[in-house]
């Protein structure tokens, strides 16, 4: 198993980040063109805690190295199953995702957390990401290591691109929400 982890701070409130998070993969995010579909499978609010639980199916279309394709079988479309939990009291979002495609040979489990920063809770949000990648194919350790390393490399690249893309979405969301508020004020 290999573990990839990263983290950063966004200079936006948790309310803004957790709202924008729902449209992370929208046309404003020109960095995530590999995500071709985001579908909501279920959504419930726990009546005793107020925690919002959402299941989503995320569909990606990204180029996979040829040697991986010949090893794992040939398709560039992959599906990810994600369960997320929004705790509105603790101001924390946790998103747990796992790969549906190639799941018999490779297990990728990612946990992403957005939480109100303890240092500056009103204006900043902390982001952490951890992925556990395990090659499941029987046989040579060498090949398993190679598959895991390639997956971690891809994860690292996507994490950086993902962060840049999300910054754009945050900026656009703030602008659009600001404009809406202005319009509403004028109407009053």
């Amino acid at each position, binding site marked *: 198993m290999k573990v990839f982890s990263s983290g950063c701070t966004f200079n936006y409130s948790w*309310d803004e980040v957790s*709202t924008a998070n729902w*449209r992370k993969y929208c046309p404003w995010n020109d960095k995530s063109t590999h995500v071709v579909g985001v*579908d*909501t499978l279920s959504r419930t609010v*726990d009546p005793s*805690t107020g925690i919002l639980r959402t299941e989503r199916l995320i*569909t990606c279309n990204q180029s996979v190295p040829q040697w991986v394709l010949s090893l794992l079988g040939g398709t560039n479309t992959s599906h990810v*199953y994600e*369960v997320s939990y929004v705790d509105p009291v603790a101001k924390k979002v946790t998103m747990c995702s796992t790969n549906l495609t190639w799941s018999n040979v490779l297990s990728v489990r990612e946990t992403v957390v957005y939480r109100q920063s303890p240092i500056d809770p009103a204006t900043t949000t902390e982001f952490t990401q951890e992925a556990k990648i395990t090659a499941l194919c029987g046989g040579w350790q060498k090949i398993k290591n190679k598959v895991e390393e390639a997956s971690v490399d891809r994860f690292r690249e996507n994490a950086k691109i993902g962060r840049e893309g999300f910054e754009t979405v945050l900026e656009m969301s703030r602008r659009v929400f600001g404009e809406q508020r202005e319009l509403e004020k004028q109407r009053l």
Partner: protein
Amino acid sequence: MAASIAPECNDIKEKYDTCFLKWYSEKYLRGNTSSNDCEELFKKYKGCLNKVLKERGIDVMVEDARKSGSSETDAEFLKKS
């Protein structure tokens, strides 16, 4: 908002997503967590989507993932903080 995996569901999905985002930012985050303004739209969207997931065999993959992991994360993240 992002597209649906099923192009025929895009219209209803967009209506639902818009409704949800409004509910989330204007009600849910302000403490009104029990309202469910978008239930009807979600039902229609799910009806459209589930057909496609079944046709493409994705429903089985999702069911497997549910079985193998989500009860663990539910136990950890659905509790009161």
